């Protein structure tokens, strides 16, 4: 007789399996309840003014009517040069950040630099760089260098060091240690272990992080002008202040198309590099 017949099966105690233990189930329900409370609580504190909320659709429609048709003549006058400047700010800022972040990333990677104090120092620089928004960096650098593109480049660079450094040092820490061990065994000096053991492993990650940051920096440098750090944001700020909505509309459309184009270019490049 088959050992797995229904009769013998029924004789056994039922075997049950639950994904979570009772304690885990209670814990999970608590998280759901607390999340619901948090949502209700925050909705009550943001103090929505109902009147403004009700006529929001009308206001939005009105804004679009003021923007259209765009003031096309404004493009050659001011927008084009500002756009080029935005590109320059983003690209130079990214390059500067790459140069500064690369050595720091090697210091931060615990498998390459076996000194906790240096690891910590590099991590600290990354965290400081990332904890400050580009706009805040821009305010600082406008105060130091005065308004203009230089302040923009510096603020983009300082914000990007942390981003590039953190992601690249993580890629370094994930590098396989086998090839590094093999090169150590050949008697290669440390600099060569870096160049021939680590770098070939992390090179795709490096270019991918660099491209991603350049893509983000194009978008960020578009608003830096709001605090006077150069680029297309300066023109946007001026048009907003003058309530020239047809110019504002044009600038927003230009920023949008630039972001779309860089997105396409960077994903094409990334697919090619890796």
């Amino acid at each position: 007789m088959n050992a797995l017949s229904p009769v013998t099966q029924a004789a056994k105690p039922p075997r049950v399996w639950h994904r979570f233990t009772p304690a885990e189930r209670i814990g999970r329900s608590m998280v759901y309840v607390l999340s619901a409370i948090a949502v209700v609580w925050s909705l009550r504190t943001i103090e929505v003014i109902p009147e403004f909320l009700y006529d929001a659709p009308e206001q939005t429609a009105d804004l679009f009517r003021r923007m259209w048709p765009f003031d096309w003549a404004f493009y050659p006058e001011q927008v084009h040069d500002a756009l080029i400047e935005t590109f320059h700010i983003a690209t130079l800022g990214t390059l500067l950040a790459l140069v500064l972040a690369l050595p720091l990333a090697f210091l931060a990677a615990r498998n390459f630099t076996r000194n906790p104090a240096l690891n910590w120092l590099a991590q600290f620089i990354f965290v400081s760089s990332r904890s400050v928004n580009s706009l805040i960096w821009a305010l600082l650098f406008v105060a130091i260098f005065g308004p203009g593109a230089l302040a923009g480049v510096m603020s983009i660079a300082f914000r990007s060091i942390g981003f590039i450094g953190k992601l690249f040092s993580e890629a370094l820490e994930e590098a396989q240690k086998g090839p590094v061990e093999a090169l150590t065994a050949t008697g290669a000096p440390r600099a060569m272990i870096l160049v021939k053991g680590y770098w070939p492993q992390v090179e795709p990650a490096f270019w991918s992080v660099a491209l991603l940051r350049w893509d983000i920096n194009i978008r960020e440098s578009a608003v830096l002008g709001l605090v006077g750090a150069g680029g297309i944001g300066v023109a946007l700020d001026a048009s907003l202040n003058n309530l020239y909505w047809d110019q504002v509309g044009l600038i927003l459309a230009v920023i949008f198309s630039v972001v779309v184009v860089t997105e396409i270019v960077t994903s094409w490049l990334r697919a090619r590099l890796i």
Partner: protein
Amino acid sequence: MTHAASAATPAEGSAGLLAIRHLRKEYRAGQPVLKDISLDIEGRGVTAIIGPSGTGKSTLIRCINRLVDPTSGEIWFEGRDLARLRGDALRLARRRIGMVFQEYNLVERLSVIENVLSGRLGYVPAWRAFLRRFPADDVARAFDLIDAVGLGEDFATRRADQLSGGQRQRVGIARAIMQSPGLILADEPTSSLDPKTSVEIMELMAQISRERSIPIVINIHNVELARRYAQRIIGMSRGEVVYDGSPDGLGDSHLKEIYGGEDWL
């Protein structure tokens, strides 16, 4: 091996190429993986170290080129105690010891010839390696070696990650010879390969040892391969040497002592 003999300095104690004296390694204090190992390796032939997993074979071989730092003991090689070397002196001593790994440890995204040339990284000036301008002699030798390990020169420009396991191990062996070593260490060089390829790789290493007179020390858990290709077998069990002699002398009683139990024999 008597205590008195092993206490002598290797210069008087033996004419061997490599002399290990009282080598001890503890990863955790009080739990030695290697207990007082003393060995002499001759300047020729294949020496196989056999033993069960976790018995310290790999640790022993890695202590020799200091990928692992020994807790105490001496490792005499070409007139220097490797256990005491540091910094540049250690780096220069390592150039004379090639190593072949179980997982090949090639740099996957570099070409075969660059992997072979990386055996020269300890010799060439940094700028040459950085700009990939290796001396013409080295490049010529690298091509010869790729041919000698049975790959053929058209493999030179292929990327290492396009090769099969056996092909990768051949590149690993070429890289080790490229160092012009006085000794080659091989840590389970066949364990990731199929039986046929394992035999081919062992054949290649035995041939290299013979033709280029480079002594090879191989960690291997396959007793049959060890018997077939080694002139000397060292059996290890629980961090100690329990057999040291010719393949012919290795009997079932020794294997029982090395691996424990007898059902598998």
